């Protein structure tokens, strides 16, 4: 094959992959974009929450499914983003600039936390990320002048776009959907690009990748920061939608639910975690309300059932891990 033909072939492959990515993202996006036109406001709000939580779960899946690093403290970066956005909206500007601040803050915090965490693996990674999550919740609880303490930050101004206030269920939904798609594209790029292939290689055999000369620790840190930054974006969207941020959004339970969403949906696929997130939100918010506030009970039973009955959901992750 001549050099020109090879370049041609690569370009062709790249174009095809890009086209597929575009279709895969554009199709569901169109359906999702039309949803508020057919749904009642309450359903639209629930769908908005699902998008936000789905983005959080998808960002966690970059760690769990692609790099093989199950984190128990991912809500820390979600919370940092939520607080950063809420604080920016309240004190400076409610434009999408608040989301930029959220992403940057979450990226910085995940860089610091990740530089300690990615050096460990397995159960130590679980513990360290758990500790990061707890540390953030403590910070949210005790740094009252910025975070509002245990009351949280309430009365967060609605986002504004060119002087237009986004405060209706449908407009909030579209605002969230726009950034949801953006976040998903970033995650998709991070996992399918050539650095993404390195990530999969690290998951399957870190020793082999290191022997091949890849700086595996730095690659893992990179994934940790991207996942943290997208979780921060989801947090910023939470502040915009909920108009309230509390320490519970940072805590262990939120992290655990995100992990549950990833596992139910199936790790390693980009839409799986979103479906899992939908199931979790529906059970927590809708079923929980109809069975007298026993949402945690239903979720707990779901955890147990998933582990016993759906090893296939987890199996992909496990099978790949066993290669190493």
């Amino acid at each position, binding site marked *: 094959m001549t050099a020109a033909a090879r370049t041609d072939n690569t370009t062709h492959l790249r174009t095809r992959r890009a086209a597929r990515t575009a279709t895969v993202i554009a199709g569901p996006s169109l359906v999702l974009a039309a949803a508020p036109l057919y749904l009642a406001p309450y359903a639209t709000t629930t769908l908005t929450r699902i998008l936000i939580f789905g983005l959080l779960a998808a960002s966690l899946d970059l760690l*769990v499914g692609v790099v093989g690093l*199950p984190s*128990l403290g991912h809500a820390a970066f979600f919370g940092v983003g939520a607080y950063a956005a809420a604080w920016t909206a309240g004190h400076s500007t409610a434009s999408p600039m608040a989301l930029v601040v959220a992403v940057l803050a979450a990226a910085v915090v995940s860089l610091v936390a990740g530089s*300690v965490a990615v*050096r*460990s693996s*397995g*159960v*130590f990674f*679980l*513990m*360290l990320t*758990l*500790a*990061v999550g*707890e*540390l953030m919740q*403590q*910070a949210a609880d*005790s740094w009252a002048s910025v975070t509002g303490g245990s009351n949280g930050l309430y009365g967060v101004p609605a986002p504004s776009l060119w002087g237009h206030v986004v405060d209706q269920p449908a407009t909030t939904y579209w605002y969230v959907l726009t950034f949801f798609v953006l976040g998903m594209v970033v995650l998709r790029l991070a996992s399918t690009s050539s650095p993404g292939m390195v990530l999969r290689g690290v998951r399957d055999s870190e020793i082999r990748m290191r022997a091949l000369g890849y700086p595996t620790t730095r690659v893992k840190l990179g994934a940790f920061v991207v996942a943290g930054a997208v979780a921060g974006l989801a947090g910023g969207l939470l502040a915009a939608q909920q108009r309230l941020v509390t320490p519970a959004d940072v*805590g*262990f*339970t939120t992290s*655990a639910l995100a*992990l*549950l969403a990833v*596992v139910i949906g199936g790790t390693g696929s980009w839409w799986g975690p979103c479906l899992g997130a939908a199931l979790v939100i529906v059970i927590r918010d809708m079923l929980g309300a109809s069975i007298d506030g*026993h949402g*945690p*009970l239903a*979720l*707990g*039973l*779901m*955890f*147990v059932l*998933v*582990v*016993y009955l759906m*090893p296939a959901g*987890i199996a992909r*992750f*496990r099978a790949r*891990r066993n290669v190493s």
Partner: protein
Amino acid sequence: MPTTQIAVTAMVNGLAVGLLLFIIAAGLSLIFGMMDVLNLAHGSLFLTGAYLAWWLGGEQQTWPSLARAVVAVIVVGAAAGGLLSLMTAPLSRRSHLEQALLTLGIALVAADILSALFGDDVHATEPPPGLGGTVVIAGWTYPRYRLVLIGVAALITVGVYWTIERTSMGALFRATVSDRDMVATTGVDPRLVRVGVFVLGSVLATVAGLLGAPIYHARPGLDTTILVLALVVVVVGGLGSIRGPLVAALLFGQIESVGRAVLPGLASFLLFGTLAAVLAVRPRGLFVLTSGARR
């Protein structure tokens, strides 16, 4: 109050908290280090013990109610340990993530049941007459219950240490960690050892809940707080040993208590800061079991 007295009070408080933390963490460490099961429902056992102490004794315990509570926490702890052992047995060859999810689910269910049974209020309970109030030693005033707690917790600590390190049952536990199949060939069913370790670890957690009830007060959310503290102690101490969690628990007791006295508001940061610092320097904990087939 003079500075020395504040310092002594903080350090004795730290000792009480540290020993209590060790009793909780010892159970977690036994189950985790020996059976390789990450039990995230361990904090729920502590909270169950604390609720039982309040339920049987009310706001003011009496000696009979304390005796009933002791029996109750041992029975409930043993039953819960047996159940946890059965529930996690099918997962013994699977990943830590799956065990974590399963026990997390159990913890959520337990928290919901406890809050349905006991409500969402804080249930404070006072130790029985004779153990409450304060004592004055050489002009230094101190709550009597905490001194009693130090004594009882120290006894349990010595008992656990002695059982694991010096008795044939402890030898059996340690042998199962090192080589499960070899234990099986000696005619001992490793599954029974597994149940035994779960029962012992769970009873330690519920007993700690009973002992800690007058200090921590049973309330929703306490299970997670305690679980995280115990996990931190186990991780810093190193897996599979008893000495490691003991040193780590005493260290964290001091950091928490002295930290709270010197830098109030930053105590919890100190705790997790120390965790990060220890793991940054020694990623596998302070004391690591060198022998044995740990993965």
